[in-house]
């Protein structure tokens, strides 16, 4: 018996407990795993500009949203319920009746874009180094518009300084702030979705930024309905009143 064993060398290690060990590890990782990914509302803060001059702003181009310390909404000088904010923001972005209190939408026409593009290209060619960047930007802007017309047909565009200005009091709750951001975001998202559905047969949120064929579409729609929600400089509301 002993002789036989020596011939075979050491016997095989019993691997029966392997499963148990693996189970233990498995349970450890099962418990510590957090599958949830972080979700939230993404925003870009404006960079700090040193000597900021108070800009001349056309009042009809600003959608003023104030939230006071008691979490009440004052939109364009009127109390508004949170539920109505979405339709209000939509009206601001589209101005369907051509109201004089809402931003004037400019028709973007292909021939005008081409004209401007040619002009700017001419200037760019003869520009000095210092002013080159300015014309390069202009060329890009008009090319973008032409591209949008190609995809969407002629459209009306919001003026450049149109924006939604959101200001809060110092004791406004963060919850309310997020709700307001949420409503504004959803107003813009709805408009974009509708436009995208109409032109491309797909919702805007279904367009994929990583796909090359979708990128110009996304750019075009963003041009029509830009997301301009200003994270305004903190203003003391109590002083203003």
């Amino acid at each position, binding site marked *: 018996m002993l002789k036989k064993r020596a011939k075979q060398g050491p016997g095989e290690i019993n691997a029966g407990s392997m499963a148990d060990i693996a189970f233990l590890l*498995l349970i450890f990782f099962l418990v510590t795993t957090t599958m949830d990914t*972080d*979700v939230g509302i993404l925003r870009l*803060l404006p960079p700090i500009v040193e000597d900021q001059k108070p800009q001349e702003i056309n009042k009809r181009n600003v959608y003023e949203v104030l939230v006071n310390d008691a979490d009440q909404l004052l939109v364009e000088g009127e109390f508004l319920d949170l539920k109505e904010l979405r339709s209000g923001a939509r009206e601001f972005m589209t101005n369907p009746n051509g109201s004089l209190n809402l931003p004037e939408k400019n028709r973007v026409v292909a021939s005008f874009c081409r004209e401007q593009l040619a002009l700017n290209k001419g200037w760019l060619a003869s520009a000095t180094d210092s002013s080159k960047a300015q014309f390069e930007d202009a060329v890009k802007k008009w090319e973008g518009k032409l591209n949008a017309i190609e995809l969407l047909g002629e459209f009306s565009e919001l003026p450049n300084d149109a924006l939604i200005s959101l200001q*809060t009091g110092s*004791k406004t709750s963060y919850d309310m702030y*997020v709700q307001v951001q949420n409503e504004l975001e959803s107003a813009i998202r709805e408009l974009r979705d509708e436009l995208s559905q109409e032109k491309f047969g797909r919702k805007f949120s279904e367009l994929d930024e990583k796909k090359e064929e979708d990128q110009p579409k996304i750019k075009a729609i963003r041009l029509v309905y830009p997301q301009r929600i200003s994270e305004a400089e903190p203003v003391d509301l109590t002083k203003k009143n």
Partner: protein
Amino acid sequence: MSRFKEKKGGTPAISTASLPDIIFMLLFFFMVTTVMREVDLKVKVVLPEALEVTKLEDKALVDYLYIGPPMDKQMGTEPLLQLNDQFAKLEDIDQWVKAGNERRLEVLVPKITRSLKVDKETYMKFVTDVKQELRKSNALKINYSTARGR
């Protein structure tokens, strides 16, 4: 009688030899997907709920700020800021942003998102102050972390 006998000796026991392999496969799956909680929370954060939310894609490019009342009742009930593993003051944000930038490749720095996990009862004053500090340190890409729903 003979029928019963046949059944008794019939199907052999299922071999469990491949069981460890299956378990190992599961194990590896969880090992790869696991993200360990990176910090111990010292403040209580109940996130506000929102519907229009975006997913933060790349977890490696997100830094978290926590704002909320401290868990430890002795510290009071006023909301406090937590960076990494400890309480911090507004002035510490700049340092924290720089440390976060240095940890990553230079090309990725503009892509870093600072995710604000803020308790929903917090007053905006505090959040605005934090935002101003972030602007000063040129950390402009932020995310208001929310819970999905409502």
